[in-house]
């Protein structure tokens, strides 16, 4: 099957889903409370985009959420990736941090959110901390794995060529691990995004996650749909952005 037919089938698949949605609501097979009609969702979408929800437009809600997600994510990148690289190179570092990460990794973010609030307050800092903690393990673990996957011969080549210590990390280990790190970035951004709604559960008055929660409070399923569709689209977009960045930064493919 060639690319064009693949694309066509993919688009058709999404369209069929949309059509089924329209048909269901059009034939009144389900109550609007359960599944709002596409038209109602579109109207809500326009209303939220133009007039806003609770005085904040959809775009602003999104911008607030993005700020939180990206701040938490970027903080995690600049800390977890170096730690992961060190863990991959030095067994002692790995022995120290691996059990700690493994212990907190399976924890649901909501489980420790109350603690974060008590420790850090309700401002954005606790929200960002929650997102940071969500992004950290996948980044650290995948950076570590990427470093461990580097063929030992490549490292030895570099050592025979006279680089060692930090120079080795910078010139050989880091670039070699980059493709794996990018895989980690994609997993981590997905995971961070998945934690977004949890982070906006307390003391938020904006953010796309809060919008969905608040819409849920008033059983505004049309708004929930608007929020979900917006999140699906932006989540996909973030993923594609990282892929794009990867294509720019890692133009080579491993042999």
């Amino acid at each position, binding site marked *: 099957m060639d690319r064009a037919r693949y694309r066509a089938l993919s688009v058709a698949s999404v369209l069929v889903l949309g059509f089924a949605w329209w048909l269901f609501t059009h034939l009144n097979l389900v109550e609007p*409370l359960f599944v709002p009609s596409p038209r109602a969702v579109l109207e809500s979408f326009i209303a939220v985009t133009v007039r806003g929800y*609770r005085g904040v437009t959809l775009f602003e809600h999104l911008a607030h959420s993005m700020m939180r997600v990206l701040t938490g994510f970027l903080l995690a990148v600049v800390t977890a990736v170096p730690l992961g690289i060190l863990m991959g190179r030095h067994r002692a570092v790995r022995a120290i941090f691996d059990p700690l990460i493994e212990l907190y990794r399976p924890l649901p973010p909501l489980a420790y959110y*109350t603690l974060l*609030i*008590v*420790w*850090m*307050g*309700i*401002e954005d800092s*606790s929200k960002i901390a929650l997102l940071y903690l969500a992004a950290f393990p996948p980044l650290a673990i995948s950076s570590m794995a990427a470093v461990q996957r580097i063929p030992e011969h490549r490292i030895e080549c570099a050592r025979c060529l006279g680089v060692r210590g930090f120079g080795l990390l910078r010139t050989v280990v880091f670039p070699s691990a980059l493709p794996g790190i990018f895989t980690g970035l994609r997993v981590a951004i997905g995971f961070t995004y998945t934690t977004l709604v949890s982070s906006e559960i*307390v*003391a938020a*008055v904006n953010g796309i996650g809060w919008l969905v929660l608040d819409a*849920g*409070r*008033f*059983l505004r399923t049309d708004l929930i749909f608007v929020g979900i569709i917006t999140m699906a689209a932006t989540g996909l977009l973030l993923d594609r952005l990282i892929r794009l960045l990867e294509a720019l930064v890692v133009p080579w493919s491993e042999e």
Partner: protein
Amino acid sequence: ATAGGGRERELTRVVIGYQAIPNGELVAKQLGWHEETLGVPVHWVQFNSGSELNAAVTAGSVDLGLGGSSTTVVAIAQGVPARVIWIHNIIGENEALVVRRGSDIRTVGDLRGRTVAAPFGATTHYHLLTALELAGVNPGDLRVLDMPPPEMLAAWLRGDIDAGFVWEPTLAAMLEADGRVLISSGELAAQGFLTGDIGIARTGFLERHPDIVVQYLRNQMRAVAMIRTEPDRAAAAIAAELSLDPVEARRQMDSLVFLDAIEQLSDAYLGRERAPGGLADVFLETGHFLAEQDTIQRAPDRARVEAFLAPEFLQRAVQQ
């Protein structure tokens, strides 16, 4: 800034935690009274429950706020660094236990074997269990489910639950969807089981900025006065705040019981400095109840409860 009061942050703004309850706080918020009179910028943060507020006060990120009486007792029991300075309202007909209109549930006793929902930790949860106790029903004889109001409405509409103890606006929605009130918080309050929305202030803030607290209370007094003398203006403000129809806002507002400063300082409620009023008994009672429920380890004793009440600020507000 941490709690415990050690290091108190520089006062650049007052953070007020509010909830979507149609009382004087929303009137003051909508009309901008605090912004006008407190002398510092005001930052508003909405909370969905008193428990979230407790965590935020503990973290030192909220200065003034309100929560249900149950969560205030939790704050006392867990040592949240705060004091009670005001009673925003007594809960009356705005919280009620709803059953289906056609159902054969006539009394609380008929709830045996049914599924009943309440948001755990909230005042309605307390009242549900109180009502069961008064009717001699063992809570183990029915299914009590923990459910936030919106999910309760969904479950109600789907017919998953037989009853729910909830507040406005979910209450109205459930009544509209074929519901009727079995018992309301007002009725339980009349039997001596008072619940209310309690205004608290963070200890560190109280110590450093008593004048702001006093001014804050004066604004609350002004709001109660407006609710009593110009209810439509007050309801209009609430309506604007909650995106409600003014008539509906008036209805919801009227289902609450408001106390003016003098009433609050009476023996029945806050009492006076060094002479705590009846609210302490309510808190003690609630505390025993929560401890029985296993939610807090130990019920706070009388000394602790009384130390938590701080009517002196309201006294100063009245004198000025």
